[in-house]
C-alpha cells in the first residue's frame, strides 16, 4: 500500500492512505502525522489526521513544497511498517438513545429521509439486519469506537466501531441535509458515528443524545477547562446506554459542574486487536468497569 500524495493548492499536502476506510489505514495516517509532529519541520502550521488520510498545511515561504513532500515520502515506509501500538485512553460516554429531542427533529425533517414512514433508528436497524431497535442499540453501545478524525466543526468526533467489517453498521446520509440537529446528538453516516458538538445543519441519521458537553469555547465545564475539545484522534470511546432518569440526573450533575466522564489510560495494539477483536475490546472495557 502506498500513500497517494497530492498538493492541495500552495499551502497543503494531502495524503490518502486508502480510498476505503479501515483501522489499518487510520493507523498509518496517524503514524504519519505523529512522525511529522515529532520531526518539528519548520514551516508546518497544521497537522491533521483523518479517517484514511491526512493533511499537512505549510507556509511555502518557509519550506519549499517539494522539499516537504520528499520529507513526508521518506517517513512513509516507517509509518506503514510500524507495529501500530498506541498509548491512548478510553472514555465512557453516557448516551440516551431514543430520546425525545432527536425523535422530534427526526419527525420534523421526515420528507428529507429515505424512508419517511419510519424513524432513523427503525430504518437503520432494519437495513443493518437487526430485528428490533433495542438489538441495534445493544450492538451500537456494546463495542467501543475509535475516534478516527475530529473536525467538520469544532470538536466533532468521527467514530469508527472496533468490530470486523461485516459487523460495521452502515447508513446513508439524509437525502437532503436537515437545517437543524440538536446539540450533542449521536448521529451516523456511512460507516461513521459522529457526535454533533454544536447545534446546526446535518445529514447523519440521529439515534440519541449525550448529556455530556464535548466542546466548550468558554472552558467553564470542569473537564474542558484545559482543552476546549474533549476528543482527539486516537481516543477510544465506549457508549453507555442510559435512560431518561440517568440522563436527567447526569445533566443535573453537569449543570452543577460536578460531573466528569470516566477516562482510563490504555495501550492499543492493532496486531492484538486483529488477532482477537472481542477479547481486546473486553480488556479495554474492563478498564472502564473495574473502577
Amino acid at each position, binding site marked *: 500500500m502506498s500513500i497517494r500524495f497530492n498538493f492541495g493548492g500552495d499551502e497543503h499536502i494531502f495524503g490518502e492512505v486508502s480510498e476505503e476506510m479501515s483501522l489499518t489505514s487510520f493507523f498509518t495516517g496517524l503514524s504519519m502525522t505523529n512522525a511529522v509532529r515529532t520531526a518539528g519541520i519548520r514551516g508546518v502550521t497544521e497537522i491533521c489526521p483523518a479517517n484514511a488520510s491526512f493533511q499537512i498545511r505549510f507556509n511555502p515561504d518557509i519550506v519549499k*513544497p517539494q522539499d516537504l513532500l520528499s520529507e513526508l515520502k521518506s517517513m512513509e515506509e516507517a509509518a506503514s511498517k510500524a507495529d501500530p501500538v498506541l498509548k491512548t485512553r478510553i472514555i465512557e460516554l453516557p448516551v440516551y438513545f431514543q430520546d425525545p429531542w432527536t425523535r422530534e427533529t427526526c419527525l420534523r425533517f421526515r420528507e428529507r429521509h429515505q424512508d419517511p414512514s419510519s424513524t432513523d433508528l427503525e430504518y437503520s436497524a432494519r437495513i443493518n439486519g437487526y430485528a428490533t431497535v433495542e438489538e441495534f442499540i445493544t450492538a451500537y453501545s456494546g463495542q467501543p469506537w475509535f475516534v478516527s478524525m475530529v473536525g467538520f*466543526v469544532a470538536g466533532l468526533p*468521527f467514530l469508527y466501531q472496533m468490530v470486523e467489517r461485516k459487523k460495521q453498521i452502515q447508513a446513508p446520509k439524509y437525502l437532503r441535509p436537515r437545517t437543524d440537529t440538536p446539540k450533542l446528538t449521536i448521529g451516523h453516516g456511512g*460507516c461513521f458515528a459522529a457526535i454533533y*458538538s454544536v447545534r446546526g445543519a446535518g445529514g447523519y441519521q440521529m439515534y440519541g443524545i449525550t448529556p455530556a458537553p464535548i466542546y466548550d469555547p468558554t472552558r467553564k465545564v470542569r473537564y474542558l477547562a484545559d482543552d476546549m*475539545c474533549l476528543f482527539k484522534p486516537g481516543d477510544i470511546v465506549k457508549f453507555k446506554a442510559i435512560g431518561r432518569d440517568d440522563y436527567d440526573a447526569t445533566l443535573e450533575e453537569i449543570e452543577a459542574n460536578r460531573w466528569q466522564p470516566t477516562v482510563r489510560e490504555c495501550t492499543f495494539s492493532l496486531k492484538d486487536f486483529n488477532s482477537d477483536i472481542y477479547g481486546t475490546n473486553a480488556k479495554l472495557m474492563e478498564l472502564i468497569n473495574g473502577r
Partner: protein
Amino acid sequence: MAVKVISPGLSTSVQDLGRPGHYHVGIPEGGGMDRFATRIANLLVGNNPGAAVLEATFMGPELEFTQSAVVAVTGGELPPKLNGEERPTWESFPVKAGDRLSFGFLKGGARAYLAVSGGIDVPVVLGSRSTYILGALGGHQGRTLKAGDELPLGEGSGKAGLSLPANLRRAGNSPAELRMLPGMYWHRITEAAGNRFFEETWKVAPEADRIGYRFRGGTPLEFVEREQPFGAGSDPSNIVDACYPYGSVQVPSGTEPIVLHRDAVSGGGYMMLGVVISADMDLIAQLQPHTPARFVPVTLEDALAARTEQRAALARAEGHLAG
C-alpha cells in the same frame, strides 16, 4: 473607552489575522476574509497589522464612539459617513466622543474592514480575537454584533489623513478569475467534465459566507464509474471523510462547487477537484452573489509565483504607508 453598536449591519464580526494551529480539532484559522484589506486598515490607523478590526458584510453597521480615535475603512467600497457626512475609504480620519459612524450603500466588493486606532480589544482566545461564529468562539461573545453591544478599544495613537492610493490596492476583474491547482480527487471526474469545469462561467450563489462560497450555473459533473469504497457513502461525489484544505473546491453530488474560506469546515465526505491558490483567497472575499466567475487551472509553480507577487504588492503598500 469603547465603540457602541447602534445597528449591526447584516453580518458584522470582530476579525484579525486568525488562529492557525487548531484545524485538527475542527477549529478553523478564521480571521478577516480579505487579509490584505485587514492589514492595510490596521496600518492606516497606526495599529499592528494583526490587530482586531470589524468585518462588515454587504451592509455597514452604525456605531457610536465614546472616545476620540482614528479610523479607516478598506476592502469593498462601502462609503463611511461620519455624523451623516461622507468620508473616503482607504484613508484614516479622526472621530470624537459622541460621533456616529454609519455607511452608505455598497458600491463594489462584498466586505469592508473598519480599523480603529488601538484595535478592538476583545479577549484573545487560542491566540486570536477572531470570531468563529459556528463554534461560538472568540470575537465579541462568539457571535456577530447586535445592537447594544459595546466593544472595548485598546490604546492607540494613529494619525489622520494617511491613505493608500488606488494603484496600490488590488483590482478585481470580471468575470472573476479564480486560479486553482487541480488535484485532490480530480481523477474522479471524466476528462470532458474537467474541461467543461474550466471553460464554463459560473455565478456566485446566495450561499456565500465566511465558511465558503457556492457557485452555480455550470454543467453537472460526470464521474468516472467505480464501485464506491467501503465507508465512503453511495453518491459518486462521496469519499471517506477527509480533511478539507482552505480554498478547496468540493462539488457535492457533482452540481454546485463550494470553495471553502477562512471559517472552513475542516473535513467531510465530498470529493474535491483541487484548491484555489492562496493568492486568490482575498479576491473571493470580495465577490457578491450573482457575480460571474471562472476557475482557471494553474501549476504549483504558477501558484508560488502568484504568492510572491502578492507579497510584493503587500510590501509596496506597506512601504508607502511607512514612508
